[in-house]
């Protein structure tokens, strides 16, 4: 195949829109103790949350940017120009009717038809930093499932909330988790009572809709003993001239025998810095599965992790990354084995197009005196153009006998024979390429819930447009 394929900019006009919104509350740009107090006052935080925020701010200011291993592009973030808190002032809405008309329009452009709610168990729609609309289907509520915004969660369910909040990801975990601790707003709080199996996935859409405004949601999901829940997070963002920062923290707690599946389709516009910390704590016999798909953003740094704390706990990360021109998808996974007979599986596939760069960073840790722990890691990278780049940086520590860890990675190009074969059958080179790339990720995409896998395939086709020829 030709090596000098030129990458053409893809059509990003979809999702590229902006409605004017009047913000009732605005903390202004820049970050100081004053900002924290403004947020705490606006949100009527309890004292312990205010303290938590201030500790977060202190840690954030102390910690240097992790540029000794991460991309120097982080230095392009001007923390003084970011607005850390904006809200339209209203409390979270209960019914669809109460949602303001122009905001509804935004959701429609995002492709969330009203009737979809009938299928989905609940929609927690975050419009900028406050949950504007929150609805759980009656059936889920009757099962005792709590599905609310994080602000509501910490106010109305403090006993469950406080027990786990900030425990899976401590404030000082990294610079950006500290930033989130300082200025978090929005995100979801979910509690699934013992034995309850939530049939339909719970879903939330996030959007950024103010220039220079970072979103700092904080999600905490607790699945009590023997319960099961699937959570879906998807996002598109309008395009702006200056950079936008998105720095979420997601904590999952799966108690004995519980199962949590967390699905993300990330499609921020190409000016967003997406620096996210996601980690789950799996107790005995519990299972946590991250399904992570990164298509948008300028720089994404995200390494979903599972701490396998109880015997026979299982952790899994399935990840797809697509890096197009100017994008850097720095993703990966962390598996911390902390009990006997724990197993983990990481499967990562990345596609680099044009000048895109996809990076896999992994951490697998099996400390000593554990028995029968197993990890399997597979990373495959596909390079489309001669200017594309891919990196793999795993770190694997194994102590003692009785454990098995294997890591495998490969980098390749779409096979010329495959393309030739398809062209023989009348497909254009671009169609053949798109089909081939979809085939590359197909076995992973199939594991996604149906509506996501359809959306994903469409997104990949969109990104592939104009990348060859």
């Amino acid at each position, binding site marked *: 195949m030709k090596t000098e394929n030129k990458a053409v900019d893809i059509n990003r006009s979809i999702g590229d829109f902006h409605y004017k919104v009047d913000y009732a509350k605005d903390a202004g740009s820049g970050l100081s103790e004053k900002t924290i107090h403004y947020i705490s006052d606006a949100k009527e935080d309890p004292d312990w949350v205010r303290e938590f925020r201030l500790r977060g701010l202190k840690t954030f200011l102390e910690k240097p940017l992790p540029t000794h291993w991460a991309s120097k592009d982080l230095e392009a973030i001007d923390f003084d120009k970011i607005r850390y808190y904006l809200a339209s002032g209203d409390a979270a809405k209960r019914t669809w009717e109460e949602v303001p008309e122009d905001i509804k329009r935004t959701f429609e452009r995002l492709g969330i038809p009203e009737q979809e709610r009938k299928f989905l168990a609940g929609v927690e729609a975050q419009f900028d930093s406050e949950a504007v609309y929150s609805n759980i289907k009656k059936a889920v509520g009757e099962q005792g499932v709590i599905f609310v915004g994080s602000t509501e969660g910490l106010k109305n369910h403090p006993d469950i909330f406080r027990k786990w909040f900030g425990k899976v990801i401590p404030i000082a975990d990294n610079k950006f988790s500290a930033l989130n601790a300082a200025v978090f707003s929005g995100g979801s709080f979910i509690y699934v009572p013992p034995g309850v199996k939530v049939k339909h996935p719970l879903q939330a859409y996030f959007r950024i809709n103010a220039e220079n405004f970072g979103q700092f949601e904080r999600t905490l999901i607790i699945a009590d003993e023997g319960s099961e829940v699937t959570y879906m997070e998807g996002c598109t963002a309008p395009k702006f001239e200056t950079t936008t920062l998105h720095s979420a923290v997601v904590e999952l707690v799966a108690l004995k025998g519980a199962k949590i599946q967390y699905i993300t389709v990330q499609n921020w516009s190409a000016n967003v810095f997406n620096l996210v910390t996601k980690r789950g704590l799996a107790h005995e016999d519990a299972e946590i599965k991250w399904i992570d798909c990164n298509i948008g953003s300028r720089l994404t740094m995200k390494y979903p992790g599972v701490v396998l704390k109880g015997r026979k706990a299982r952790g899994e990360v399935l990840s797809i990354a697509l890096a197009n021109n100017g994008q850097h998808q720095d993703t990966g996974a962390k598996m911390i084995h902390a009990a006997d007979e724990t197993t983990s599986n990481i499967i990562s596939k990345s596609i680099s197009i044009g000048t895109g760069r996809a990076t896999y960073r992994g951490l697998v840790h*099996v400390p000593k005196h554990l028995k029968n722990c197993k990890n399997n890691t597979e990373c495959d990278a596909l390079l489309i153009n001669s200017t594309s780049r*891919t990196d793999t940086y795993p770190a694997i520590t194994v102590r003692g006998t009785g454990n098995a860890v*294997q*890591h495998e990675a490969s*980098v390749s190009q779409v096979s010329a024979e495959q393309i030739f074969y398809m062209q023989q059958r009348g497909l254009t080179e671009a169609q053949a390429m798109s089909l081939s790339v979809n085939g590359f990720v197909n076995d992973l995409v199939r594991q996604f819930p149906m509506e996501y896998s359809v959306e994903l395939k469409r997104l990949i086709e969109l990104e592939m447009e104009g990348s060859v020829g």
Partner: protein
Amino acid sequence: MSSIAHDETVSSKGILSGPIELRDLPDWFRDQQHAAWEKFESIPRPTRKDQPWRFSNVDLLDLAPFKFSPALSDDDRANVLKYSRGLDRFAGRLIFAGDQLIERNVVSDDLKKRGVIFQPLERAMIEHADLFRKHFMSQPAVLGSAKFAALHKALVSNGTFLFVPRGVEIEQPIEIFHWLRGEGVSVFPHLLLITDELAKVTVVEHFRSCDARATGFACGVNDLIAGPGAKVTYVCAQNWGENVVALQMNTTTVDHDASAMSLNLNLGSKYSRFESLSRLVGEGGRSDLLAVAVATNEQEFDARTLQDHISPRTASDLLYKNALDDRARCTFGGLIRVEPHAHFTDAYQKVRNLLLSDDSEANSMPGLEILADNVRCTHGATSGQINEDEMFYLHSRGIPTKVAQRLIVTGFLNDVIQRLDQPSIADYLRGLIDQKFARSR
């Protein structure tokens, strides 16, 4: 033989006091040493937070206790000579102890006549200054040890210079011994190997200590240059004493259609870091990087590699195997880098750890950085223990556990050694591994 003025006042000095003024050194070399010393002092000591030193026990790199090697007595020299037994047959041999030349077995007159130059570094820098200056440490140390490469450059006083001219094939291996003698002593071994077009040579280096328990510090650098179509094989049998801290930084440059193979056998030392940089600068070049380690007690082996594909149509293949017992630790940090436009690269990297005890630890960081699209690159890392079925099979044949374990480990490592395709060297290396097993049981 021109020797170095190792009088007692000099030799008792700590290495952190800087370069010693040796006679007979050219001015340019002396200047280079002083510049390197300034560089050494300006670079901070590595910490574990530095990515290239992740998982390394950097506390062991306190160099304050180490001093220059004292001059050896005639008895010492005779003793070193007596124990310098390696391969049965060799084409030429140099033996150093405390960086002092003990014996020199030159290559045959025929090879000399055909232009082979095999001599100590201190002579080569005068007699072959052009070649020397062109290639001596011409590549920066990029794998983390820039500070220690500077230290080596500032303090190196001896080593080996080997030049194999166009089309000359040296059938038998060239042997080099480096001995540490005395307590708290340091050595700075160097090998500058230059092969011209279509030349062929095999070099075997032995690193040993006279006293198995003495502390010591070894800081070596090798420049291995494989000219167009040349075939270079380098074998390092690292068997320093058990309290030695060792750093070795090797750079292999592979020109077009050349092939280089290196095998590092790590048996000795308390902490040994081995940095191997393989630069594939010409089309059709191929580099094989092999390593075997048997780590016992509290030993720590730290391997860092870079397969740097600079030119299109190059191939590299890395296979590192570690067997770990007791409280031993092994770290592997490797990277395959495919530079922009280095298309048709075929690169492979595999590290396998066999953990034999509950307190052993293996860290693997196999990495890829691919900046060209028409490539095939794969890597794999595994860590596991002896297969129970294999053990059961051997038990059922009446073989006791320890022997069975040894058989399986030997088989596990042998597969790397066989890749050398040089039976006599392979036998010799297997012998060293057996000796280590015999010692540790």
